[in-house]
């Protein structure tokens, strides 16, 4: 009996940590991190990465755990309630709407990616994905599988198995949520996290013992060099610091609204400091030790230096480059299955955590029982998921939501939470709250970091991120010889322009057209009418569309943003009603907090 009690207690403590770590560990650990590192200086990326972990990641995690527990001890588990007791102002709960919107909207597209992983795992079991070494074949397969060629492709009957898999993933998530936090999330994470680690280690061992099956120089050692060799000049590039900070920020799930909800269930005798540090370190283990050793070294062994073509996109690394690897690898079919099944587990431990903050809000905001809150939430996310699944062409809807909600809004919420901890709760009270029941102490200087450095650092990153991504940019590629300019002025495209582009390693776009803009300016448009190059003042500029232009130039992207704002509006109304209800019940009061609280 005594043993049973001890095991039960320890299981609960580690269960909490595994659930938070499960929320943080996702596809980004295995696909985004290696690509990000390789693109931004290799080993040199790790210096800003670890600095960001120490200055931004772990302190913000502690802040979220502390604020979540603080709100929970005062009777609230949802972000609007927690924010209201932290900042005793009527406006605070409306800011918390972001902490509901972010996990809700991310879930709407994340469950699709989750279904891709499960679908790919099953395709490996049946052998359908063993198509030999041909990046184009896997690229086309992915496009077809996700319906990237046309809107509504997934509903046209061409890929019925995917819709079935999507429904399975959806039902699995909601079954876990419906079973409740103990019998659902905790029970699942206790099994899923060790299983995920086991599967990743099996794949890692296979990668490290692959040898050099293609070329003696393409082996695991040179693969590790591709990933880890530092390009020190990149340390001086702000883009490297931005990428490293973003990786830490997104990887640890800070600013998602999940940790603050999970921590709200802790008692004052529970340890938030060690639990927060442990869940963060588990996330780092999956990211640096497994993601950093598996993905790119494996791809390098089979694809060589051309793997660099895939590092710019997580999807390209995971769903195009790695299937090439598995196709060439002895036992690749089973390892392909293990890999994608592991990604599916990583995805589901994250997606299930995205539902809990909204469930908690529906329940405490409106007194709903679990079946009612799960039903309402299910209807909302089914509509959103259906929207993303239908508007699948070029994954525009998914990309739009991922950028604005899954990236940009997270910066805003993270910044708001950092200010809330450092300046509203205050570092003195924050330190006291964090150390209730703590078994390890947070060094004192971290409180000052949280008050001054973290908000400033996060603010700078957010501004740089916005400057880099929101506006469109035209970068000069080449000066055009006057002959090319003259030919353009005469009408049809001259071969001189094509030659100039070739000399600058640019292929004139297939089915591209040149449109005269008047006043000696021309636009080179791609197949789908998108602006690729500008010619002005006898100079060729490459056009990079910013996120604002991407939204405004595409009706699906506009619709996606409208959808997000409709959901935001709906949640704000819900938060308003819940706030009135809490006020009527006497659960909320405004103004300075009494010293006894």
């Amino acid at each position: 009996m005594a043993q049973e009690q001890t095991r039960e207690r320890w299981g609960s403590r580690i269960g909490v940590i595994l659930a938070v770590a499960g929320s943080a560990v996702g596809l980004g650990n295995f696909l985004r991190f290696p690509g990000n590192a390789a693109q931004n200086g290799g080993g040199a990326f790790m210096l800003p990465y670890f600095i960001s972990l120490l200055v931004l990641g772990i302190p913000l995690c502690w802040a979220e755990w502390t604020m979540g527990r603080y709100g929970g001890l005062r009777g609230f588990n949802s972000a609007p309630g927690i924010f209201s007791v932290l900042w005793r102002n009527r406006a605070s709960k409306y800011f918390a709407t972001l902490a509901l919107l972010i996990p809700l909207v991310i879930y709407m597209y994340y469950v699709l990616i989750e279904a891709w992983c499960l679908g790919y795992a099953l395709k490996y079991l049946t052998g359908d994905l063993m198509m030999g070494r041909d990046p184009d074949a896997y690229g086309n397969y992915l496009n077809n599988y996700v319906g990237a060629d046309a809107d509504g492709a997934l509903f046209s009957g061409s890929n019925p198995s995917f819709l079935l898999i999507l429904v399975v993933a959806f039902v699995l998530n909601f079954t876990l949520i419906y079973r409740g936090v103990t019998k659902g999330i905790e029970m699942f994470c206790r099994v899923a996290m060790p299983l995920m680690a086991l599967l990743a280690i099996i794949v890692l061992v296979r990668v490290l013992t692959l040898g050099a099956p293609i070329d003696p120089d393409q082996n695991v050692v040179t693969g590790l060099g591709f990933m880890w060799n530092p390009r020190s000049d990149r340390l001086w590039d702000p883009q490297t610091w931005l990428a490293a900070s973003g990786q830490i920020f997104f990887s640890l799930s800070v600013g998602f609204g999940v940790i603050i909800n999970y921590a709200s269930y802790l008692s004052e005798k529970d340890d938030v400091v060690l639990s927060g540090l442990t869940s963060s370190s588990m996330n780092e283990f999956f990211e640096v030790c497994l993601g950093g050793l598996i993905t790119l070294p494996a791809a390098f062994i089979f694809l060589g230096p051309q793997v660099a073509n895939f590092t710019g996109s997580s999807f390209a690394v995971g769903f195009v480059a790695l299937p090439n690897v598995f196709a060439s690898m002895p036992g690749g079919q089973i390892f392909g299955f293990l890999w994608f099944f592991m990604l599916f587990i990583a995805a589901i431990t994250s997606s299930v955590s995205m539902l809990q903050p909204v469930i908690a809000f529906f329940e405490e905001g409106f007194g709903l029982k679990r079946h009612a809150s799960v039903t309402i939430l299910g209807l909302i996310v089914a509509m959103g998921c259906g929207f993303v699944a239908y508007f699948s062409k070029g994954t525009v809807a998914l990309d739009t939501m991922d950028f604005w909600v899954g990236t940009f809004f997270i910066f805003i919420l993270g910044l708001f939470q950092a200010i809330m901890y450092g300046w509203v709760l205050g570092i003195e009270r924050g330190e006291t709250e964090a150390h209730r029941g703590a078994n390890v102490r947070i060094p004192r200087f971290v409180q000052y970091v949280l008050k001054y450095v973290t908000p400033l650092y996060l603010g700078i990153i957010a501004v740089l991120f916005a400057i880099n991504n929101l506006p469109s940019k035209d970068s000069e590629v080449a000066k055009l010889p006057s002959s090319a300019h003259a030919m353009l002025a005469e009408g049809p495209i001259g071969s001189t322009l094509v030659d100039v582009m070739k000399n600058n390693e640019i292929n004139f776009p297939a089915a591209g057209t040149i449109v005269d803009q008047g006043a000696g300016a021309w636009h080179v448009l791609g197949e789908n009418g998108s602006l690729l190059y500008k010619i002005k003042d006898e100079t060729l500029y490459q056009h990079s569309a910013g996120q604002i232009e991407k939204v405004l130039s595409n009706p699906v992207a506009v619709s996606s943003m409208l959808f997000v704002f409709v959901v935001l509006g709906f949640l704000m109304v819900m938060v308003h009603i819940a706030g009135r209800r809490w006020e009527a019940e006497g659960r909320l009061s405004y103004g300075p907090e009494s010293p006894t609280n």
Partner: protein
Amino acid sequence: MDPASYAPTPAGWTIMVVSITMVIALVSYCTVRVLTLPPVEMDDIKGPLEIDTRDTQDAD
């Protein structure tokens, strides 16, 4: 580019080994500390995932 040119440099090895060692040391320290903490009184256990939110009591 020649694949052989990607052979790990001493700096590459160092960064990889130091990064992985640091992370493994941190996760090991934390996990051992968590697993060796004294048991909490039964009444005190209210981990986030243990809380009975009472919302499934009459769920059908």
